[in-house]
């Protein structure tokens, strides 16, 4: 039975009223009195020495207030990296300085060199063009394989090479894995590229810095997924501003997808310059600028080998990856190809031996960091592709090969350090086959053949680790932050509630689903609850939203705080009802004494807390406000079976996605409609990666797809009607809601399903094609067929 409120109800997204009627308040909507405008002059070469910057002509231009270059930032720190990897030899990674503005050298197209602050945006830009910057272009390293060659040009002169780290996991298994592969009945090998992507949130990045001389307080308004993280990183490591003098506000944010997690130079610049200039400083990214300054995603080159016995049991898995870091280390870049990737290489399978090697490489490209899924899509893609290839090579049905190797007993400790608490992979596989009418595929394929088309069906069965993350564990793994979440539940005198959360909503609908949880626990109407987020002055220190962590970690903090509220309220109710608090029950917003008809309403109890005339003041404090911090005991492990049905036009190579099916196990579901929307968005991005999107560089380091003329975003008519299901539920065992998280699954599970489907179609059509690198654009598919 669908519910009409609380946990499990498809409550309409309350935030959509303002978004859909143009009343959202985004950072670019913030215009402060007396505001000035910053224009970033960026490198148009990938690598070069800055010989001189002559600012005099620019400074003399109308409206110009000041021109900033690296020398203005000499007293300021570089942009910090939030994760330190220790390599297979016990050495810490090479960590180059990442200055706010380029110092002496530019290292990628888009690297900021100077900033003009002027009265208007146009004046700032005019003056930016008048800057006289003399750069000697140097050879650029773009391809990771070239970057690792002896004698390769170095991206950073002060590092020993372009290798950031050489990570091995689990290092102790290395030899055993090699042995197992050597002796195996069958080894399937696959070399592949996980294509570089640009996140492209609908709202470009914006920063507005403000400084109040009377209080010595700085405020930064920014397009961030985690304002507290920005406050900590920027305040402590870059600008030296203590938290009580620095407020970071991230109001409505129009999509993040990971790229708005990181601390960027533009944020530090606007905060810094506002004090220097004595006026607010605003910067709004153009779309072209976003292509060369927002952190990119993915960009792995991988060789994976899967060893099987004669019956198709997986014996060992070995994978070697080159992971592109770009020119500098973005905030969480080092963690993505390592801990967010290597730990997922077991997938849904009981492979006993696994070894993952990752070499992170500096190149003269835009920094690469987390993008929807972050490491887990890269793990899933190679694994689900190699399993499919193995099935074909061994003549085993790909569904059967997966089933044969599925983990069936939980908890399950993988050989790559994580322990899955729950899951039922056969259930999601069954669901997928049913939803997609797998049994009827051959009939449909025959129909396609009649029309001269090749039809194919592809499967992937993914695992991901969400609910990031147990702080003590990630601390051991190199994180320079804790990954708990916080919530303050402030009950007002008349019973309405404001929940201040450290999570941040930038499209996820937290204002709706979080309110559902609290409403459900207390038994009052959702409309009585407001979710407050995105302002360090209002919310307790929290780590923000990414890694599908908000309901699992932020939601758990909120549950804990609400439990504290309920406990206290029960004491107040017991006093009012002259009963023992052990006998008080809370149901539908009323407290009653068990076994009697004596009860008192929620609003009477909350009023008593703030008007404590009749109140046990000797036992409890007045007021009703509680804060909780929740640190998860483990990751959560959503999983699911994804299926994709395609048709390939053999004459042109064009792939049409006819159907996409997602059977997910997200644990318990708070709002099914929002979950469905999250999966739709993830699928669109995953299909986008597999079919369309490609951030390509030429050999000189120019971005070949630096605008929508060449960077193909998925559009509605590229996508089929999605068929999604989340009725297979194995609740998470270690968080109070039993939830797992759903934000990234679509982007993680879909690319291999699509590629597997195209390979299936081509092989059914008699083409001996075993792999095509994403995106599967028509020319690539045609070239593979005509190979």
């Amino acid at each position: 039975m669908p519910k009409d409120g609380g946990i499990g109800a498809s409550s309409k997204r309350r935030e959509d009223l303002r978004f859909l009627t143009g009343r959202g308040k985004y950072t670019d909507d913030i215009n402060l009195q007396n505001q000035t405008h910053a224009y970033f002059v960026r490198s148009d070469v990938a690598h070069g020495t800055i010989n001189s910057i002559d600012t005099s002509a620019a400074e003399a231009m109308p409206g110009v207030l000041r021109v900033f270059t690296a020398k203005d930032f000499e007293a300021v720190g570089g942009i910090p990296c939030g994760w330190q990897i220790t390599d297979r030899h016990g050495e810490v990674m090479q960590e180059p300085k990442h200055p706010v503005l380029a110092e002496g050298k530019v290292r990628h197209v888009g690297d900021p060199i100077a900033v003009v602050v002027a009265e208007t945006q146009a004046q700032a830009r005019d003056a930016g063009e008048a800057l006289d910057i003399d750069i000697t272009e140097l050879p650029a390293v773009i391809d990771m394989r070239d970057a690792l060659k002896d004698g390769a040009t170095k991206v950073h002169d002060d590092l020993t090479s372009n290798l950031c780290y050489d990570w091995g996991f689990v290092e102790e298994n290395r030899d055993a894995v090699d042995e197992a592969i050597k002796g195996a009945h069958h080894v399937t090998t696959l070399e592949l590229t996980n294509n570089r992507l640009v996140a492209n949130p609908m709202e470009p990045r914006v920063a507005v810095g403000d400084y109040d001389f009377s209080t010595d307080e700085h405020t930064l308004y920014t397009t961030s997924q985690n304002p507290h993280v920005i406050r900590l990183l920027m305040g402590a490591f870059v600008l030296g501003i203590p938290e009580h003098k620095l407020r970071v506000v991230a109001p409505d944010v129009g999509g993040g997808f990971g790229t708005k997690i990181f601390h960027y130079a533009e944020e530090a610049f606007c905060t810094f310059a506002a004090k220097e200039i004595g006026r607010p400083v605003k910067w709004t990214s153009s779309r072209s600028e976003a292509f060369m300054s927002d952190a990119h995603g993915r960009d792995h080159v991988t060789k994976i080998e899967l060893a099987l016995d004669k019956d198709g049991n997986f014996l060992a898995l070995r994978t070697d990856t080159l992971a592109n870091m770009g020119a500098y280390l973005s905030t969480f870049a080092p963690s993505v190809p390592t801990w967010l990737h290597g730990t997922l290489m077991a997938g849904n399978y009981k492979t006993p031996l696994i070894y993952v090697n990752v070499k992170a490489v500096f190149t003269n490209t835009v920094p690469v960091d987390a993008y929807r899924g972050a490491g887990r899509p890269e793990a899933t893609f190679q694994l689900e592709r190699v399993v499919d290839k193995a099935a074909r090579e061994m003549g085993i049905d790909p569904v059967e090969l997966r089933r044969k190797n599925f983990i069936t007993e939980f908890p399950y400790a993988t050989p790559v350090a994580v322990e899955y608490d729950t899951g039922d992979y056969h259930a999601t596989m069954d669901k997928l086959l049913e939803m997609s009418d797998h049994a009827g595929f051959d009939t449909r394929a025959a129909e396609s053949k009649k029309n001269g088309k090749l039809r194919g069906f592809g499967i992937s069965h993914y695992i991901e680790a969400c609910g990031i993350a147990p702080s003590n564990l990630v601390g051991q793994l190199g994180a320079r932050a804790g990954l708990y979440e916080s919530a303050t539940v402030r009950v007002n005198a008349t019973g309405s509630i404001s929940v201040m959360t450290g999570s941040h909503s930038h499209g996820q609908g937290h204002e709706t689903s979080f309110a559902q949880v609290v409403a459900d626990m207390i038994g009052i109407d959702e409309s009585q609850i407001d979710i407050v987020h995105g302002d360090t002055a209002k919310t307790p220190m929290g780590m923000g939203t990414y890694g599908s962590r908000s309901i699992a970690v932020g939601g758990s903090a909120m549950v804990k705080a609400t439990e504290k509220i309920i406990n206290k309220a029960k004491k107040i109710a017991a006093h009012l009802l002259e009963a023992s608090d052990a006998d008080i029950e809370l149901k539908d917003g009323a407290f009653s004494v068990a076994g009697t008809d004596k009860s008192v309403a929620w609003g009477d109890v909350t009023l008593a807390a703030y008007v404590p005339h009749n109140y046990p003041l000797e036992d409890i404090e007045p007021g009703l406000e509680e804060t909780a911090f929740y640190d998860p005991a483990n990751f959560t492990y959503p999983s699911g079976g994804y299926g994709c049905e395609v048709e390939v036009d053999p004459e042109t190579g064009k792939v049409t996605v006819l159907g996409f099916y997602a059977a997910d196990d997200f644990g318990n579901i708070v709002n099914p409609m929002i979950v469905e929307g999250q999966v739709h968005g993830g699928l669109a991005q995953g299909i986008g990666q597999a079919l369309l999107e490609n951030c390509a560089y030429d050999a000189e380091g120019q971005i070949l797809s630096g605008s929508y003329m060449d960077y193909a975003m998925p559009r509605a008519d590229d996508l089929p009607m999605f068929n999604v299901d989340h009725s297979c539920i194995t609740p998470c065992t270690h968080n109070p809601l039993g939830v797992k998280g759903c934000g990234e699954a679509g982007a993680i599970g879909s690319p291999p399903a699509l590629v597997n489907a195209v390979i299936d179609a081509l092989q059914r059509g008699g083409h001996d094609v075993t792999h095509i690198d994403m995106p599967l654009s028509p020319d690539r598919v045609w070239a593979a067929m005509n190979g």
Partner: protein
Amino acid sequence: MYNFEINRPSTIADAVKALASDEAQALGGGQTLIPTLKQRLASPETLVSLTGIDEMKGICVDDDGRLCVGGATIHADVAADGRYPALSAMASHIGDPAVRNRGTIGGSIANNDPAACYPAAVLASNATVVTNTREIDADDYFQGMFTTALEEGEIVTEVKFPVPEVANYQKFVQPASRFALVGVFVAKFSDGVRVAVTGASEDGVFRWTDAEAALSDNFSADALEGLSVSADGMMSDLHGSAAYRAHLVKVMTGRAVTPAA
């Protein structure tokens, strides 16, 4: 965008006068020019808007049965017209509704983007491009990518399309821009078939004369068997190699002859 003056004449004569200055440039629907200005890749002092000139707008049929499209007519109007169905169908697939309700035929063929659709229609239809000073045959008008017979300050006021017996345009879209990766317009007249190809060649729109000869003899896709287009001189980029484009020319030509129902 840099600052510029805007001039809104209401007659062709006034527009020609306004364009006489070196630093003036015609503005049609702005769907190509405005993005160029926003990127600061051009800096005309004055833009002379042609969209307020009534005598350059609208569609009619002349005494020779030609469909005459005013130079400032928007794609949406051509799409809705229907008297030359293949032309209307082509116009209905240019860009998105915003582009179709702004962009003009004059702007499109003056710009002569090597991946634009209109040039293929004009060339295949053997249309006549009318300007404020002369009439130019399609075969003489297109002179390589982004290059036309237009002189400085010359305005496309009208395009006259002979309406073929049968015609079809097949556009294989570039996945990002959705311009033509390869577009082929086939037009069959009583005296022969014309085949114009856009999107493919480094020299811009061109006629595939081998296919024209074969199809003039036998207007069926079978007639193309044995023909091929050389990859030499075809464009090659992120979205398709020269060989792929050459291959698509033939595939799209065949589909234009036998369009799917």
